[in-house]
């Protein structure tokens, strides 16, 4: 029994030594991680400006409005937005539909009339695709819109593109009506 206890103590000591040595090192690393991020810059917390949220549309009844037809009337008169109309896409597609081409034709007319204005075209997707793939798909949508405007005579250096993937849905709903609204390209005036 005594022999057993001695053996046990040796095991324990070794184990404890290893453990405490190792644990302490790890603890310190852990501790480092704990303070800086949480205390660093509390001032910046919760920016008052939730960049471009579309609250107006959130309140719309979801069932109404087959997207491509009535969407324009919902447009909020926010700074940065223009008389340019959004266009819409089919699921997992960046091909311009005929209604989208018609809209872009009107948008091109407006751009040609308002010559110095520069516009950023935002490409957006609905929530169903993967968010990673949608970042690339949104860009293709914006680019398709830009290319078409250029063929209609708008100078390419007045147009830029950005993709938000599915990060900025226009309609927070989870049905086809919402998705149809969210698969879109938008036009934001960045300089007059």
């Amino acid at each position, binding site marked *: *029994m005594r022999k057993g206890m001695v053996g046990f103590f040796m095991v324990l000591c070794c184990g404890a030594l290893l453990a405490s040595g190792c644990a302490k090192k790890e603890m310190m690393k852990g501790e480092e991680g704990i303070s800086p991020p949480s205390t660093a810059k509390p001032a910046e917390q919760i920016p008052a400006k939730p960049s471009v949220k579309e609250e107006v549309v959130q309140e719309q009844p979801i069932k109404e409005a087959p997207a491509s037809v009535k969407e324009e009337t919902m447009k909020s008169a926010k700074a940065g937005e223009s008389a340019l109309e959004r266009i819409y896409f089919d699921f997992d597609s960046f091909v311009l539909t005929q209604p989208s081409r018609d809209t872009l034709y009107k948008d091109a007319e407006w751009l040609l009339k308002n010559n110095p204005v520069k516009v950023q075209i935002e490409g957006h997707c609905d929530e169903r695709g993967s968010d990673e793939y949608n970042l690339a798909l949104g*860009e293709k949508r914006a680019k398709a819109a830009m290319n078409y405007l250029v063929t209609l005579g708008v100078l390419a250096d007045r147009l830029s593109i950005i993709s938000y993937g599915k990060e900025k849905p226009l309609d927070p709903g989870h049905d086809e009506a919402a998705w149809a609204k969210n698969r879109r390209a938008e036009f934001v005036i960045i300089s007059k």
Partner: protein
Amino acid sequence: MKRAFFTLLFMLFPALVHAQQGYLEVTAQGSHQLQLAIAPPVSLAGGQSAEVSQETTEVFRFDMSLAGPFTVASPRVTEGRSGIRPGDFDFVPWKSAGTDLLIKTGYSLTGDNLTLECRLYDVMKERELTAKRYTGKRKELRRMAHTFSDEIMRVITGEKGPFTGKIAFVSTTTGNKEIYLMDYDGFNVQRLTRNGSINLNPEFFPDGREIIFSSYKKGNPDLYRREIFSGVEARVSSSRGINVTGAVSPDGKRIALAISKDGNSEIYTIDKDGKHPTRLTNNGAIEVSPAWSPDGSKLAFVSDRLGKPQVFIMNSDGSNVRRLTTSGTYNVSPRWSPKGDRILYCRQEGGGFQIHAINPDGSNDSQLTSEGNNEHPRWSPDGRFITFGSKRGGKEAIHVMRADGAGQTKVSRGKGEDSHPTWSPRW
């Protein structure tokens, strides 16, 4: 019962032998699970603390329930002597309760200083398997217990557990998508970014001290590298267009990502400081989401070059492209297992995504999830567990499960929608 236990020992011994080679699949199907009991922690010195006792038990219960080889039992055992050292308690009542493995824990709490002494016993053999003592502050209790859980996995399976690891993820708690860090079980949530913009896709460097992520903080979706402890950030890819879905190479020297400056998104690799870009794909289709093989020689990625997004594999110099996923019309988000034997990906079916695993040669495709919408799977560093974002009714939340899809458990409990988890290297 005895017979069952002998079988178990046979299972365990090869495990220990194999430990040197470093791998044992702990979730071998059909195997008998070890019944593990957690004795109520006892005070070794100083006063009792019901909180310490309860929290310790909770951590062990959570870790061991997820672990795989164990069934965590709560036998009603009345101990005559309830010490934690060999000879200070009796095995008999545990034996008759059917316990195979027993965790005994003692603590001493003096002011804010905590010592936790943890011991694992093989009840049938009346033998101690491992003993560790941890000292630190009271707030480090969970970490101490997770460390012993990792040790239990080492003793039983030959490879340490990943339970001391952290999960980085994206949360909308503030109304914006910011990057957060938490223990793998959802505790100790810390916010990392506070730029009020959209931040996406955090991934760890192999040393666990830095992450990369994409952010719109300067307008364009650029790729950033950030030291976790200091908060220092560097913008490492800011080409015109998207700079997204970054993945750090296993040696930590290169970053694979999707860049669209050539007109549409292509897979590139860059140095960790953004230098020496190498373009790997050259295709009018969408290419995103590169994932390194563990030896760094190959990359899985997503391309819609055949019409719909599918997972492809290429050598890490861009050569030898071949298609990996052949069934399903929309397959994305590949992640190569740390041992190289499996690739996770997400398949869109029936309006949502489900997580699948497949061999790198395209064989043995199996579906791991079926409830709700499940995306963005990432391996634990030992490859035995998976974390993923899942929406099941309520908010999207971070979940964990075993590599075979068993034990799916929600771990994030925040106010926001939580997504894009990634499991840190051992912390």
